[in-house]
């Protein structure tokens, strides 16, 4: 056992200590957590040495919650309370979810996101996902021996705004600060590209348990530029299992199975599918609770035949992504395969045929996303070393727009725009004296609003009465580096600014999250105040450290007065951080932020100037 080190009182153990950060692959069937240790990304294992955590959560009648292998073992006996593949429900209504009829859950079809009735009450998919994230957070904290600065959580590139927001909400519930939501294929490209010093255009084919992504990236001198992305947020390895499950039912000629039997057969179908990636045939042998017996053999060719349409279904997005990137299949230098489902030989054959080259399978398709996320988390947390000089330029997968007259979509931000991005559009009134306007924000490529995903509705009130067509209402969209949208609207001609309330159609309101946080904290027997205090203290110390570093580096940009004000604010905040009032610390952080606002602006302008200066020198040298 390693000896624990104790620093001298009042001294920091390490002046520039390594900030603990992790990458999390929150998968449909399995989840992983990874970190960078001594410069190398590694997946963290549980106490029994397993790295993969089945994304399964069981709510028990006694109020306890099981996550992972233990929950998975109960899925056939307690199917209703054991939630598998919850990722399929994130940011989704009941009508959006495929195969609900064969799922053993008790759904509550409320407006917005679907919910599940369990023995512990109604649960949102966000809460279920938060249990998985909490388990991984605890594993990481136990393994790394400290509190995490934050996590990079991966999402399918083709996830829309509602699904991304739901993922971020789940992290918040799990007490995990999110450094970035990172697209899964981009994370894989980072891990692959850095390990192989790859340059050129690559395609990442990512078929996970429940989602499919295809991203085209250009790798050049440390820049990972996503040229285009496409996919299907409801297509994955689960669908191959489901097809085999239906085939087994049909072939065995048994009566419609009970919920428990259905789950048992689905598990057998998955085992058979996995076996067929290494063997020519697999046996399915199950004793049903009805007394019937299923005893079948399925060959690799039969399986390939019955799932051919699913493989074909992935090629549509591949073609579209290539077209959006303006490239032909033979211009792609390599195809990186990601996701356990890409182990199926007939998928590898189809991809080899399409691109005219064997896909790259020299990395673990289950782990590569988590490893890439860990590398990115490490630099985002501030542990960047000189050799970690890479940059990710990612895109928005689906166009964003507004509903206009006649239920048509007006695109404001087109798909595959590089993030972050902002765009504004002007609208006007339809009637004389109109004082309010209703907006409907949607995401998708289709012309009709009803064919796109509804993201939010909001109203702009207090428009001064004018004749029709005279008002000028400017609606601004901003999409941040996580791919999340915020919308603002104002009336320009009168200078009147009206407030905007955005109601997410598929998200959770802040009140709902606050309520879940409260009940979650009570459940865990944790002290919410202690947690809030700790969070603010960490944030306060972080802000002080960042400010002091900035002064050390660019202090010349400050006047003596400014410098004195900032130093005073730092001293105040430091004093507050040693206290017990988290609200006071928050206000101290805000005060320091105000004091450094002008300084921060000048520093950024300066770094841009020096970037350009460097660029021009290079040009002259040619």
């Amino acid at each position: 056992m390693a000896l624990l080190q104790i620093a001298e009182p009042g001294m920091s153990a390490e002046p520039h200590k390594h900030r603990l950060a992790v990458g999390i692959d929150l998968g449909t069937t399995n989840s992983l957590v990874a970190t960078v240790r001594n410069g190398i990304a590694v997946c963290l294992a549980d106490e029994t040495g397993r790295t993969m955590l089945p994304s399964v959560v069981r709510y028990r009648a006694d109020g306890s919650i099981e996550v992972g292998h233990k929950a998975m073992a109960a899925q056939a006996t307690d199917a209703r309370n054991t939630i598998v593949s919850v990722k399929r429900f994130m940011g989704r209504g009941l009508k959006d979810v495929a195969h609900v009829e064969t799922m053993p859950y008790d759904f509550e079809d409320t407006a917005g996101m679907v919910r599940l009735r369990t023995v512990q009450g109604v649960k949102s998919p966000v809460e279920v996902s938060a249990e998985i994230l909490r388990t991984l957070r605890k594993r990481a904290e136990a393994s790394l021996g400290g509190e995490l600065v934050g996590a990079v959580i991966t999402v399918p590139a083709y996830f829309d705004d509602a699904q991304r927001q739901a993922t971020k909400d789940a992290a918040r519930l799990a007490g995990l600060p999110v450094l970035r939501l990172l697209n899964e294929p981009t994370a894989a490209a980072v891990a692959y590209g850095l390990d192989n010093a790859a340059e050129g255009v690559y395609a990442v084919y990512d078929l996970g348990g429940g989602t499919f992504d295809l991203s085209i990236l250009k790798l050049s001198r440390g820049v990972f530029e996503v040229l285009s992305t496409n996919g299907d947020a409801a297509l994955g390895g689960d669908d191959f299992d489901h097809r085999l499950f239906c085939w087994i039912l049909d072939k065995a000629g048994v009566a419609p199975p009970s919920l428990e039997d259905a789950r048992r057969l689905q598990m057998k179908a998955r085992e058979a599918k996995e076996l067929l990636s290494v063997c020519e045939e697999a046996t399915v042998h199950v004793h049903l609770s009805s007394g019937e017996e299923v005893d079948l053999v399925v060959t690799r060719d039969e399986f390939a035949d019955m799932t051919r349409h699913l493989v074909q279904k992935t090629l549509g997005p591949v073609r579209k992504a290539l077209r959006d990137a303006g490239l032909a299949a033979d211009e792609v230098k390599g195809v990186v395969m990601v996701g356990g489902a890409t182990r199926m030989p007939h998928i590898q054959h189809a991809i080899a045929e399409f691109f005219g080259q064997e896909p790259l399978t020299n990395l673990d398709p289950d782990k590569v996303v988590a490893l890439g996320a860990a590398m990115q988390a490490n630099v985002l947390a501030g542990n960047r070393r000189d050799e970690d000089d890479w940059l990710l330029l990612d895109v928005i997968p689906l166009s964003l727009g507004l509903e206009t007259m006649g239920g048509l979509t007006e695109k404001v931000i087109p798909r595959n725009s590089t993030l972050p991005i902002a765009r504004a559009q002007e609208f006007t009134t339809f009637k004389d004296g109109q004082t309010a306007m209703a907006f409907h924000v949607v995401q998708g490529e289709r012309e009709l609003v009803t064919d796109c995903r509804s993201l939010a509705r909001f109203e702009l009130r207090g428009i001064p009465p004018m004749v029709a067509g005279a008002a000028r209402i400017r609606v601004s969209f901003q999409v941040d580096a996580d791919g999340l949208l915020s919308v603002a609207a104002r009336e320009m001609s009168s200078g009147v600014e009206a407030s905007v309330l955005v109601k997410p159609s598929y998200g959770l309101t802040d009140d709902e999250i606050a309520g879940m946080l409260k009940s979650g904290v009570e459940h865990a027997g944790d002290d919410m105040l202690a947690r809030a205090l700790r969070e603010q203290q960490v944030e306060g110390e972080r802000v002080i450290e960042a400010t002091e570093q900035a002064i050390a580096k660019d202090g010349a940009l400050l006047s003596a007065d400014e410098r004195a004000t900032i130093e005073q604010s730092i001293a105040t905040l430091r004093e507050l951080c040693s206290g017990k009032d988290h609200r006071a610390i928050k206000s101290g952080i805000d005060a320091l932020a105000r004091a450094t606002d002008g300084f921060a602006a000048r520093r950024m302008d300066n770094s841009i100037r020096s970037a350009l200066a460097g660029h021009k020198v290079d040009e002259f040298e040619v």
Partner: protein
Amino acid sequence: MSIDPTQDYFTLFGLPRQYALDEGALEAAWHELQSQVHPDRYAHLPDVDKRRSMQWATRVNEGFRILKKPLARAQYLLELAGVDTALETNTVMSPEFLMEQMEWREAVEEARAAGEVDELEQLHHRLQTHAREVRSDLALQLDEAHDYTAAADTVRRLMFIDKLQQEIDEALLALEE
């Protein structure tokens, strides 16, 4: 935003203010600027830095988009020169051009209705060739002759062509699904 509003995108990217473009230099400058301002470089810093980083990175991406696309770049140059290219306020197009547009449009409609993918792809290529010719006119007008009135007219023609190209792409997409 404390961004200097008088600084145009050509200056921001360190490129000459003209239509002819060194694409490699534009991309190198884009990468260089983003490596300074991208939110990933500020994820561990206070919110005030994060916010400013997002504003700058947004502006840099917008500049890259405008300078990269020939039509957007030409429109931007005219805007900087104080010439209005808005279609709504300037709809006088030559009858020959409008005739030509109608013919293109009919051809696209027919191919779309008949579901002829090959025909649509041919139209796509013919239109691309045509657009290249129009763009070389534009380069002369903007960079050599400095005839902004003529350039504005050419820009409007390119806008028609661009729209048509989009319609063909959408028709192709719809036929595939």
